[in-house]
């Protein structure tokens, strides 16, 4: 019995969002008389951090403290339309919609403040701490709360804004099949190192090293948690998970978490991540989307690492011990490839 080390790499281009129907999302932003803002969305935060990021985008665009913004994703029946939380589209599509809505709401807020201060709205600026003042004359100031109260009870205005982000639909050329399915691409490269046991066929992760280029990281800690966690979903797809291990008979499929395998805490390995920020021209504050792509490069990298370790090329996922062992037997033993 020998354990063979192998290293494999993979690079990916990942399109942000999709082409279908222009992939639109809407956002509505309004203030209440307390001067706090609500962002209404139908987009869902599954724990990936979309509420935090859209809150930051809204606060930055309005020029108010992040504490003054609340993101409400409570109801997709009554909220503005969203295509959904998938295709790494949340930050890019929904973020752009929130930015547009916040920009419109900011315009109304500045007009209302101008009326109270008896100046031209173009001469006003926000300080990011909840106040609006005349440029170059910070003492001529009014709080966003007082502006909201004046708008509501004196001026009869709603401080609100509407936003939508829609990519022009790209049609397929009937002759060539050519199209532009996305306007924004993220990129990644991942190196996986594995250890393959040639007696049991088991594959253990030894370490991962990756680099992600995903536009501007609007919330670096949330980006990091996506990349760290998502890599293990990739490992899980590469080595463990399948609903139909003995396709095509679903009767032999796993029925619970005891049979539907996923990595446990004992299976993890060190993962060093570099984040490269090249702002996207059409992203909110330059952001792309670090969603699904964090799982994708892991699968080919692991498959390549297994080939490097024992010389077997498995092209059917997941790469279970049984498949590895059968392939090693079929080629008459492990054939470690040159280390790169």
């Amino acid at each position: 019995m020998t354990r063979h080390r192998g290293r494999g790499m993979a690079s990916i281009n990942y399109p942000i969002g999709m082409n279908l129907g222009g992939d639109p999302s809407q956002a509505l932003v309004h203030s209440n008389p307390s001067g706090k803002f609500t962002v209404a969305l139908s987009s869902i935060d599954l724990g990936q951090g979309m509420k935090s990021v859209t809150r930051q985008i809204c606060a930055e665009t309005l020029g108010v403290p992040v504490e003054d913004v609340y993101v409400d994703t409570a109801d997709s029946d009554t909220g503005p339309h969203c295509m959904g939380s998938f295709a790494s589209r949340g930050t890019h599509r929904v973020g752009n919609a929130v930015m547009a809505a916040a920009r419109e709401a900011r315009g109304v807020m500045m007009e209302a403040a101008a009326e109270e201060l008896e100046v031209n709205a173009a001469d006003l600026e926000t300080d990011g701490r909840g106040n609006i003042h005349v440029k170059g004359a910070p003492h001529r100031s009014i709080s966003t709360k007082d502006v909201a109260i004046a708008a509501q009870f004196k001026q009869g205005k709603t401080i609100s804004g509407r936003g939508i982000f829609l990519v022009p639909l790209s049609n397929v050329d009937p002759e060539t099949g050519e199209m532009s399915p996305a306007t924004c691409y993220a990129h990644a490269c991942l190196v996986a190192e594995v250890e393959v046991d040639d007696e049991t066929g088991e594959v253990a992760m030894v370490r991962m090293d990756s680099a992600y280029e995903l536009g501007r990281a609007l919330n670096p800690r949330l980006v990091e948690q996506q990349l760290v966690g998502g890599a293990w979903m990739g490992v899980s797809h590469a080595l463990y998970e399948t609903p139909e291990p003995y396709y095509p008979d679903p009767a032999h499929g796993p029925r619970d978490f005891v049979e539907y395998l996923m990595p446990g805490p004992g299976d993890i390995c060190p993962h060093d991540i570099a984040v490269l920020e090249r702002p996207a021209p059409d992203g909110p504050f330059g952001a792309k989307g670090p969603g699904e792509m964090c799982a994708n490069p892991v699968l080919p990298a692991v498959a390549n690492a297994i080939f490097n370790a024992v010389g077997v090329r498995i092209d059917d996922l997941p790469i279970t011990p049984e498949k590895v062992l059968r392939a090693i037997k079929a080629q008459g033993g492990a054939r470690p490839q040159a280390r790169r």
Partner: protein
Amino acid sequence: MSKIPLQFRHNGRDVAIFVDGGTNLLVALRELIGDMTPKFGCGQGGCGTCSVLIDGELHLSCLTLAETVAGRSVETLDGMKQGPNLHPLQRAFADNFAAQCGYCTPGMLMAAKALLDRNPSPSRDEVVEAISGNICRCTGYEPIVNAILAAAGGRVSA
């Protein structure tokens, strides 16, 4: 089926309920006591998110008959925070981004508390071992392990 009277301590408070024979502790806690912090994941001991402490020992409440806790002390995540203050483990989970969707978090926190209550300075391997009965889909476990080690080392924000 006749109801069985059942008394036990729930997060330091005496509770008395009537359960059907065969009711598991998870159902008793959630549906009869109203403590929704232990989660229903798989209902057969495969995921760990229903974990609670019984007399300080970690148990899967979905596989525990409710009547077996008569006269004993049951701790759940609901009893973890101290008044308005988060428990250091909860604070460390937040600091270390150890939750995303949050469904595994109650079980992870109870498994971590069971460990630190008996071993305040665990090694990394001991932390991994302690949460090995708990499945997490989002985090890749690394932030959870780091959070537990940070709580053990007193490295938590105020």
